[in-house]
């Protein structure tokens, strides 16, 4: 399938490379491909949460596998983004138990508040709302994922607060 091409500044820092090497050490030396998923997470976190084709090629080169082996994996798993995305991605769980607790209305509320549709970043690139499948927090519904963390027992007030905190740069996205 034809895909739109996006360009990205690639920067594999020494710290990132050290972490990649540590991840590679978790597997036998002839099974480097096994480290692909953890490495993709690390590389994506360090590149505005998305992976361009060039960045995927770089990962293939580091691990020593074919580029297509990386593409196949990136396109299979939902957490790897193939285009620039909003900095603060509100990923609402929209599976049954969350629906029983009103997540659909809450998503509508958030979209209205941000003036966006699901899957479209805000014009300033700050926010994006996405519906995802069960995140394993059904008892604490409605909930969403924001960066590495879960925001649970959501209400409209909590959403307002979260948006304000994001704007004030008070939200930690990654646990490094």
């Amino acid at each position, binding site marked *: 399938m034809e895909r739109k091409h996006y360009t990205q500044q690639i920067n594999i820092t020494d710290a990132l490379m050290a972490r990649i090497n540590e991840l590679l050490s978790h597997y036998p030396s002839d099974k480097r491909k096994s480290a692909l998923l953890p490495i993709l997470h690390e590389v994506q976190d360090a590149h505005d949460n998305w992976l361009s084709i060039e960045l995927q090629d770089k990962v293939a080169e580091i691990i020593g596998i074919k580029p297509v082996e990386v593409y196949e994996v990136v396109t299979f798993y939902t957490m790897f983004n193939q285009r620039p995305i909003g900095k603060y991605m509100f990923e609402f769980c929209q*599976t049954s138990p969350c*629906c029983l607790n009103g997540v659909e209305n809450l998503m509508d509320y958030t979209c209205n508040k941000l003036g966006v549709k699901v899957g479209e970043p805000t014009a300033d690139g700050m926010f994006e709302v996405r519906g995802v499948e*069960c995140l394993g927090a059904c008892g604490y519904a409605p909930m969403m994922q924001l960066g590495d963390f879960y925001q649970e027992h959501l209400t409209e007030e909590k959403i307002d607060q979260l948006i304000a905190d994001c704007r004030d740069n008070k939200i930690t996205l990654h646990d490094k």
Partner: protein
Amino acid sequence: MLIAEITKSRYTINNMSQKILLDKINVPGIKTYEVYRKEGGYTSVEKALKKLTPDEVVEEVKTSGLRGRGGAGFPAGMKWSFIDKKSGKPRHLVCNADESEPGTFKDRFLMEYIPHLLIEGMIVSSYALGANLSYIYIRGEYMWVYKILERAIAEAKAAGWLGKNILGSGYDLDLYVQIGGGAYICGEETALIESLEGKRGNPRIKPPFPAVSGLWANPTVVNNVETIAAVPWIVNNSGADYAKIGIGRSTGTKLISASGNIKKPGVYEIDLGLSVYEFMNSDEYLGGMSTDRPLKAFVPGGSSVPILPAHLIYKTAAGEDRLMTYESLSDGGFATGSMLGSGGFIVYDDRACIVRNTWNFSRFYHHESCGQCSPCREGTGWLEKVLHRIENGHGREEDIELLWSIQSKIEGNTICPLGDAAAWPVAAAIRHFKEEFEYHIRFPEKIKNRDHFVAEPFEKVRHLVSNVTV
């Protein structure tokens, strides 16, 4: 939210039967190695490595009757005994922490709040299997739990519980966590292994089974988090003691993830054999419904198991008390029973729309199908589209029969159980709530609002489609 905040438990729980897995859950600091160790953590490793042979550990687990807690309920000790020890190839234990069955969130609770229990279980279980390199495969969305486990493993390693020649026993073990990328299918053990090899999560054709050819074609056992977390207690006490808890072939305790329209959603450790009524209504557990609306339906074991209507929840079709056991929950087969599955307990009051819920589950399985085999790849999408039409007022009379036919053509014909998991909820919804489907088809104007049953629950309109004449 700040990182500091999530280190304290967000959920308090307390019930009588939390004796094996959650015994120490409310001890302050139990997340840390020091407190966990002070509370008696890692004694099972000392006992196993110093006093027991690997086969003796396997025997204890066999005696315990512990069954796989991921959903299938296969006896864990028996699964262990299948591992190929003759080939001379390296063996691996892989912990399945890819918890993603809708309604299930128990493993995350264990790993987040008492991570060392899983690591202790991994060490003892790896020892029993003769595995020197083991992994915990955790779903990508549990990123912060992945970090918790990585730190806990580093602590355990620093304290000498991992690495070379553990406790001077001559036994070596390296343990790592592997993070997934967002794919429910990786909870299927062979898809998980593929993913752990850095590939797409396509389930493998079985045989060969992982016990013979698993990770990197080496003999491998894949066990759920809760299964492995039960092993330290079994080793510390005995398999026989574990088997004393529970009823019949449902031994020990089970974590139940409870969600939906109940007063106290959360994770509970129960003795298998507790009655569904008590679990639902006692203040020690769920405390009844969250509002004064009546109970309409429940799903006892995660989204894939059959949904049951109110009259089959507390009593079986034979009129016996329904118990929280593998056997009692499946009593009556699919006609009037369901399954314990992963223990994902979802409760619906009369505001819930079964058609909408079935569409929701179908969308989930459609989204999560790996796409490898034709019945699942094509069938799950078809189910979702037809259900979406019905829920949105574009259903046709023949659609109910069509749904039944599609699900029956998926079931049993796929490579892995995802096909069955997609088919069963549709079949059960039609079996027990057919009138609700008919209502959607015949009165499309009444279901336009997605919360259509909030103001006017189905019981109030059932007479419009009821086949029973009064």
